């Protein structure tokens, strides 16, 4: 009985305690359910996103760059289909054997093979290894013949930049190549669109207009597993080709420039004197931008880099030259404007001029005799200009020179490597060199020597602004119909499209006329320095001014020897310059020509203008037919 009671008491305890446990269980299960609820119902969106982030991975493909076309719509930077060879290491049974087979078929160098093997180690086995970036058609068809035995090899067609005119536009367009770390850090757009194999602009317009040209990546969406292996493709999102850019240059003129400059170092620029459109801009020698697309070979690079004619420098924008006698129109204009002299003012040239015991020579040893402005410009008499520069003073001269664009960047918004040059005055010298100005320096500044440094594009702009009647224009290299995003370029384009000829650079328009006439005489009258290069047909007739810039001071002995250009060592020869505008009756274009170490302007530079004007004026007929051609009437 006692035992039974005890038994019942025991089961009572057990049962009672069991119910406490059951209650606890219910609470705990309730807790688990609420946790499930919070994860699966409340935060479902968050975890779905995370799960998609886990499994979906995007592969960006290199975007297609926008085309760049010349004024007439000819593609000057386009895209070309190229054949590449990819190997997927995962699918290859014997990698070393495959590579040795490919080496034979494609004729790969040992260096290249080593490079490929090194690259393979950095990749995951299912990532494609690029064996050749650019297969020739021969190689491509050969590979296709052997494809059945080359398992894991994949010929791929992609798109690459192409410059159909090779080297004639290099300094304008620049070139594209693989971005380095700096490029990616500097430009957020490149960073965003970066994929292995992308090419970006490294120089010139390709670089300046990068954000417009680059385009939008194609995107492949894949489902991947935890190890990053692609399981299947979910989506293929087509990208967008970059914007088309139209520039103002004319390929035909550019071609002629390249032809004229063949073998020489220097630059030719041609500009529309009203619209400011740059028609041609060629720096010589140039190099082939296509060489950089797939990585330039060391040998070729050394050849370009070590060329004494310095092909890597864009001489049109960054070449600094003494303007020589091409400055004389500005000196004369400044003297007229400041009423230092008038057209009747005469100076007697005896071949040299003494000042404070220093002798300043005219180029003509025997002297020119009595010279008026027109004659002095025509024959480029140095003594005359020494005299008016002396009377004018360098500070007043600088004001005129700066008005006409010297010492300032011309296309700086488009080309980051453009140089300002300099036009000195007394203040400049004290600030820069800490020395007072010497009157003798005014004299040589008056004939474009000394501290003055100009770029060929500045001389072209200067000439254009004389030719258009003395109005300020802002040169441009892009046509107005381009839709661009870059703020600095947009701003530049706004100023260029508003060339309204309401900013005269003169005080009296007659003075401009006098200078134009003097330049006409220099080219079209007997004894003119570029008389030999004249064209009599009024359709092509042009006016210009030669210049011969010394690269070193001429010693007394050398002056006596009077050596011919070819007898002087190359580096010591004078630079030949020529600025001109035409057609004279109804001018539309200006140009500047510089031949480095070419000798005298009249023999080395001016003859090029003859050929150029013939073509430029003929090409004008075609330019006129385009819808965005503007007639200007001033």
């Amino acid at each position, binding site marked *: 009985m006692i035992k039974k009671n005890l038994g019942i008491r025991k089961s009572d305890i057990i049962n009672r305690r069991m119910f406490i446990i059951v209650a606890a269980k219910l609470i705990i*299960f309730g807790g688990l359910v609420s946790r499930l609820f919070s994860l699966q119902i409340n935060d479902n969106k968050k975890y779905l996103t995370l799960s998609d982030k886990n499994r979906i991975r995007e592969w960006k493909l290199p975007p297609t760059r926008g085309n760049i076309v010349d004024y007439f719509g000819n593609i000057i930077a386009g895209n070309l289909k190229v054949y590449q060879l990819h190997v997927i290491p995962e699918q290859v049974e014997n990698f070393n054997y495959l590579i040795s087979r490919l080496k034979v078929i494609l004729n790969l160098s040992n260096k290249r093979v080593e490079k490929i093997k090194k690259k393979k180690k950095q990749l995951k086995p299912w990532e494609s290894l690029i064996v050749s970036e650019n297969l020739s058609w021969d190689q491509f068809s050969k590979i296709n013949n052997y494809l059945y035995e080359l398992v894991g090899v994949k010929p791929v067609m992609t798109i690459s930049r192409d410059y159909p005119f090779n080297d004639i536009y290099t300094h304008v367009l620049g070139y594209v190549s693989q971005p380095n770390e700096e490029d990616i850090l500097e430009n957020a757009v490149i960073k965003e669109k970066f994929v292995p194999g992308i090419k970006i602009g490294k120089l010139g317009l390709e670089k300046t207009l990068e954000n417009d040209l680059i385009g939008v990546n194609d995107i492949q969406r894949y489902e991947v597993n935890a190890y990053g292996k692609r399981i299947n493709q979910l989506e293929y999102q087509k990208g967008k080709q970059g914007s088309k850019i139209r520039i103002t240059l004319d390929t035909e003129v550019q071609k002629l420039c390249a032809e004229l400059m063949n073998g020489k170092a220097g630059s030719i620029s041609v500009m529309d004197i009203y619209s400011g459109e740059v028609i041609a801009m060629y720096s010589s020698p140039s190099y082939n931008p296509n060489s950089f697309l797939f990585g330039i070979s060391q040998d070729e690079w050394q050849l370009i880099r070590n060329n004494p004619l310095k092909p890597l420098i864009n001489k049109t924008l960054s070449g600094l030259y003494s303007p020589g006698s091409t400055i004389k129109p500005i000196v004369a204009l400044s003297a007229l404007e400041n009423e230092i002299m008038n057209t009747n003012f005469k100076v007697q040239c005896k071949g040299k001029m003494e000042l404070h015991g220093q002798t300043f020579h005219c180029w003509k040893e025997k002297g020119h005799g009595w010279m008026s402005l027109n004659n002095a410009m025509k024959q480029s008499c140095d003594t005359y200009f020494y005299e008016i520069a002396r009377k004018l003073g360098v500070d007043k001269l600088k004001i005129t020179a700066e008005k006409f664009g010297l010492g300032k960047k011309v296309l700086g918004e488009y080309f980051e490597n453009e140089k300002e040059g300099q036009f000195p005055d007394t203040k400049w010298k004290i600030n820069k060199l800490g020395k007072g100005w010497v009157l003798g320096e005014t004299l040589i500044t008056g004939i474009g020597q000394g501290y003055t440094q100009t770029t060929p594009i500045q001389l072209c702009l200067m000439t254009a602004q004389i030719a258009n009647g003395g109005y300020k224009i802002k040169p441009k290299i892009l046509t107005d119909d381009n839709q661009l995003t870059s703020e600095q370029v947009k701003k530049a384009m706004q100023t260029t499209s508003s060339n309204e000829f309401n900013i005269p650079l003169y005080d009296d328009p007659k003075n401009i006329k006098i200078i134009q006439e003097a330049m006409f005489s220099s080219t079209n009258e007997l004894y003119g320095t570029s008389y030999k290069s004249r064209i009599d047909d009024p359709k092509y007739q042009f006016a210009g001014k030669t210049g011969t810039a010394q690269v070193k001071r001429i010693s007394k002995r050398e002056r006596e020897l009077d050596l011919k250009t070819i007898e002087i060592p190359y580096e010591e020869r004078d630079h030949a310059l020529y600025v001109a505008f035409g057609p004279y009756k109804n001018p539309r274009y200006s140009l500047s020509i510089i031949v480095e170490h070419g000798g005298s302007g009249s023999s080395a530079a001016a003859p090029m203008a003859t050929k150029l004007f013939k073509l430029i004026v003929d090409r004008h007929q075609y330019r006129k037919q385009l819808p965005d051609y503007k007639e200007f009437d001033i």
Partner: protein
Amino acid sequence: MFQHTRLNSDQNFFQKVKNLDYILIFCILILSIVSLFVMYSTDGGELLFHTKSHLIKLSVFFILMLVISFFNIKLWHVSSYFLYIATILLLIWVSFYGIRVSGSQRWINLYFLVLQPSELMKIAVILCLAKYYHRINIEKVNTFVSISFALTIIIIPIILVLSQPDLGTSVLIACSGLIILWLGGVKIKYFFVSLITFLISLPFIISYLQPYQKLRILTFLDPDRDPLGAGYQIIQSKIAIGSGGFSGKGYLQGTQSYLDFLPEKHTDFIFTLFSEEFGFIGSIGLLLLYSIIIMRIIRIGILTRSSFAKLFCFGFAFAIFIYITVNLSMVLGLLPIVGSPLPIMSYGGSSMLATMIGFGIVLSAKIHSKQVIA
């Protein structure tokens, strides 16, 4: 002979069949079938090794469960101490000759099954203590000697399992044992005092943990501190469960598991896969199924006459509950990651064997509910 008849009940075979708890068996069967389907999904929707092996084990152990249920509950009462000691011996054997996998020595290779004795200990400790509290006089329950004896029964296997090392299983063994002490009538005061002592000494215990165990606790507290390393499992598990949503991604459609983001998806994280594919509804359903099983076991415990059977049923029901709770809390990010399988669902023979034996004894208690054990 006398012994023999005492162990045999007075029911004949058909009566026993009639007395089986068919609801419980049905629930176990459903759970087994669900686990097979889920296992098929972990194999990526193909009939591969894990699914086949799981099917064989399920079949064999299910039959074993039925066989066990026909033995008189007295047999288990008689052999309780023996089974406990045998399992202790197995654990000692393991600590000398066991198979070592990734730093832990837990297994014995029996060729048809890799046995993990610590899993069997979960049942053995319940059996042993149930017998102890069945036999002990109610007045003596709270004496120092009896409590010490009961604690010794729990502590010996825990020490052996901890040395493997296997924290998760030892915690579960401790829970299973302590619940019998609770049910047996040990004063509630003692439990409170021990709990407080435990909480106070927790920092000291933590300082004695293995570095990887400390890392798990740190990771539990902040999974994002090392999302690709220690925190990876728990983060991916939460992503999988959370992305399942209300109705799940659909059977065989769980991207987290299909694309190998889920670790240990066959074993400890099987609920994660289930929950990803069947969603909130499926998870509630599974919990409900488990709840029915637990309630059925408790009902049997209430029906049986002997304290031994009662203690075992309640203890086993609680053990099942604790396994589920620890496993789910772990995959839901509520507890640090300790290796603990989900009963029946997880791949692994030993755990399933122990669970099925437990079910078998419970069914036996049902059939022999009128049996008085002296």
